C-alpha cells in the first residue's frame, strides 16, 4: 500500500468514527442506491442462492429500505453457480447498464474471483456473502467479506481434536480451492500439535460418491476423520459414514460446519447425532439477535431454516447500510469501502468486525455437537473461540 493511500485510509477511518455522532443531514430521498445481487438461484448450488436471497429480504423487512438517506434497491441475478464468465458478465452489466452502486452475493470462489477485476475497474464495492477461500479479498481493494474463510473455521476444530485425545486423523476434502484451504489449515494446525495424518483424500466436485473414499478411511484405522465438503453434500457423507460402520470401527467424524449445514441438518437423521464441527453460525445460537432473526426469516421463507450462508447475506446488507450511513448516502465506491472498513456490530451469529486492513471478517468460532432438541436436530454450541481472524492474512 502506498503511503498516500494509507494516509487517505487513516483519514477516512477517522471520518467513519466521527460519522455516527454527526447529525444526519436532511437529504430529500435521492435516487435509490442499487445493489446488484448475483447468486446461484438455479443449478447445483441453488440452495446457497435461496438462503441468501431470503436473508436479504428478511433484512430489508426488519430494518426498512431507507439508510443514510437513501432507499436500497436490490437487483437479483442468477449466475447458475457454475459459470464464472456469466457471473462476471452479469456484474459488468449491472455496473454498466443498471448503474448499481454495490455488487453483492457470490456463491462460490471461482465466481467471486472472476468478478474481482470488474469491481476494481468500476470502483464498486463488492460484498462477498458466501465464497470462503482466503485469497478472495486480496484480489481487489473493493472486496469486503461478510461470510467466513475456511482456515478461520478449520483451525479451531484441529485444536479441539488435538486437545481431545485424537492423535491420528484422516482428511477428506472436496477437490477445489476451499477444500485445499481447509485441508492445508487442518494439516498445519493438527501436526503442529503433534497429530498424525496418515491419509489425505480429495473427492471430485461433481458427482461425488463417497463410499469408496470412506471405505479407505475405514481400512486406514484412524481415530477420526476430518471432512470438508460444500454445503449440501454433508448429508451424503454422513449417510455413507454410517452405512460403512465407521463409527463402530471407532472413527469419529469431525469437520467444519458445512458438514452439518442447518439447511438440511434435520433430514440427516440419527447418523448426524454427535458429529463435532467448528463454525461461526448455528440457527440454534442462543442470543436475542438470533432468535429475532430466525423468527423473521421463517416469515419470509416458512419452509427453510436459516443456515450460515443466509447469515452472510444478512450481515452483508447490514454492512452496506452501515457504509451508506457512514458516507451520508454518498455512493462513491472508495468512500463506501472506507466507510465499511472496521465496522463492528452484533450479528445473529455473535459479535463481528470487518477488519479495517484486510476487509475480511473477524468473528467468534464455535465448537458444536449435533443433538436432538424438541424432535429436531440442531448444532448445539458448547465452546467458543473469540474473534478469530483468517490465519492466512
Amino acid at each position: 500500500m502506498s503511503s498516500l493511500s494509507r494516509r487517505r485510509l487513516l483519514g477516512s477511518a477517522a471520518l467513519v468514527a466521527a460519522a455516527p455522532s454527526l447529525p444526519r443531514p436532511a437529504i430529500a430521498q435521492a435516487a435509490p442506491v442499487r445493489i446488484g445481487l448475483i447468486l446461484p438461484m438455479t443449478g447445483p448450488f441453488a440452495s446457497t442462492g435461496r438462503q441468501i436471497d431470503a436473508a436479504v429480504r428478511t433484512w430489508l423487512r426488519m430494518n426498512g429500505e431507507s439508510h443514510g438517506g437513501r432507499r436500497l434497491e436490490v437487483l437479483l441475478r442468477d449466475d447458475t453457480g457454475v459459470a464464472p464468465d456469466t457471473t462476471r458478465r452479469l456484474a459488468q452489466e449491472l455496473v454498466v447498464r443498471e448503474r448499481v452502486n454495490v455488487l453483492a452475493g457470490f456463491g462460490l470462489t471461482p465466481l467471486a474471483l472472476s468478478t474481482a477485476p470488474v469491481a476494481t475497474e468500476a470502483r464498486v464495492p463488492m460484498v462477498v456473502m458466501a465464497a470462503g477461500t482466503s485469497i478472495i479479498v486480496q484480489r481487489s481493494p473493493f472486496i469486503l467479506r461478510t461470510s467466513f474463510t475456511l482456515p478461520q473455521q478449520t483451525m479451531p476444530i484441529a485444536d479441539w481434536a488435538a486437545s481431545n485425545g485424537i492423535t491420528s486423523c484422516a482428511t477428506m476434502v472436496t477437490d477445489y480451492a476451499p477444500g485445499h484451504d481447509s485441508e492445508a489449515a487442518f494439516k498445519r494446525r493438527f501436526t503442529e500439535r503433534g497429530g498424525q495424518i496418515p491419509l489425505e483424500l480429495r473427492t471430485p466436485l461433481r458427482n461425488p460418491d463417497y463410499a469408496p473414499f470412506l471405505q479407505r478411511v475405514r481400512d486406514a484405522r484412524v481415530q477420526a476423520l476430518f471432512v470438508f465438503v460444500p454445503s449440501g453434500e454433508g448429508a451424503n457423507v454422513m449417510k455413507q459414514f454410517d452405512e460403512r460402520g465407521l463409527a463402530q470401527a471407532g472413527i469419529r467424524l469431525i469437520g467444519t460446519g458445512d458438514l452439518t449445514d442447518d439447511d438440511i441438518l434435520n433430514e440427516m437423521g440419527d447418523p448426524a447425532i454427535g458429529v463435532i464441527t467448528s463454525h461461526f453460525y448455528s440457527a440454534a445460537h442462543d442470543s436475542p439477535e438470533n432468535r429475532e432473526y430466525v423468527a423473521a426469516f421463517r416469515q419470509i421463507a416458512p419452509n427453510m431454516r436459516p443456515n450460515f450462508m443466509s447469515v452472510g447475506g444478512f450481515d452483508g446488507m447490514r454492512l452496506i447500510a452501515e457504509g451508506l450511513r457512514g458516507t451520508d448516502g454518498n455512493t462513491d465506491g472508495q468512500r463506501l469501502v472506507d466507510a465499511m472498513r472496521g465496522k463492528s456490530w452484533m450479528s445473529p451469529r455473535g459479535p463481528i468486525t470487518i477488519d479495517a486492513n484486510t476487509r475480511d471478517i473477524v468473528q467468534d468460532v464455535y465448537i458444536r455437537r449435533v443433538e436432538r432438541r424438541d424432535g429436531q436436530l440442531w448444532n448445539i454450541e458448547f465452546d467458543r473461540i473469540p474473534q478469530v481472524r483468517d490465519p492466512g492474512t
Partner: protein
Amino acid sequence: MLTVLVDGVASGMLLFVLACGLSVTLGLMNFVNLAHGAFGMAGGYLCVVLLNQHGVPFIPAVAAAALFAAALGFVLERTLYRQLYGRDHLDQVLFSIGLVFVMSAVVDWLMGARQQLITLPAWLQGRWDFGFMTVGVYRAFLIAVCGAIVLALHLGLVRTRFGARLRAAVDDAVVARGLGIPVTRIFGVTFALGSGLAGLGGALGVEVLGLDPTFPLKFMVYFLIVVAVGGANTIVGPFLAALLLGVVDVAGKYYVPQVGAFVIYTAMVVLLLVKPHGLLARGAAR
C-alpha cells in the same frame, strides 16, 4: 477388496435398472431419449414425498414410484414422444433436452433445489460382517432386487410372446410390421415399462446416488455409457456394461482416487474403440 467389489456390483446393478429402458428406446425405435433420467427423477421424488411427508413405508413407496414413473412415461409417450418417431436424431435430442429442462424446473419449483434425503427402515440399515469382508445391508438388498429384475427381464424377453414380438421388432421393425406385429403399441408398453424401471431405480437410488433437480443431466452421461458400451439390442450387453462401469468406477475411486472420474471415461473410450458396436455385438449387423 471384496467389499469394494460388492459395492461396485450394487451400484452397477442400480445403474442398469435406471438405464435399461433407454437401451430399449434406442434399440427399438432408434429414439435418442436424453430425458430418460427425468423419469428416474420423478420416481425418486415421489418416493421421497411419500416417505417423508405421508409416512408411507419404504417398499410401498418404491413400488408407487415405479408405477408413477411408468404412468408418466405412458402419458408422455402417447402425447409427445410418438410425434417424433422416425425424425432426425437431432430433433429428438432437442425435444428430450427440452423435456428435461421442464421437468427439472417443475421439480425445483415444487420441492426446491436441495438434495433430498430419506431414512431407510431399520431392517435395511447396518451391515453384515463376515470377517473377511463386510457388506452393507442396503447394498445387498439392492443386488437382490436388481438381480431379480434382470432375471425377470431376461426371461420375459426370451420366454413370453410379448418378448418374442419385441425382439422381432428390435431386429427389424419393417419386417415385423409387415408380419402384423403392432410395433407401435409394443413400443408404447415397453416405453412405459422402461420409464417405470427408471422410476424404480430413481427411488432405490435416493440413498446411494442422491437426488436433486439436476439428477437427469448428472446421470445422463452414465446412462449413455451403459447403452453405448453394452450395445442397444440386448439385455445382457447393457447389464454387463453397467456392472463393469459400476465396478471400475468404485474400484478406481478406491485404489487411485487422485485420477477420479478419469477411469470411467477412459474405460468407455477404450471399450468403444475395441468394440465399436457394443460388448456383445453380433457382427456388423447394425
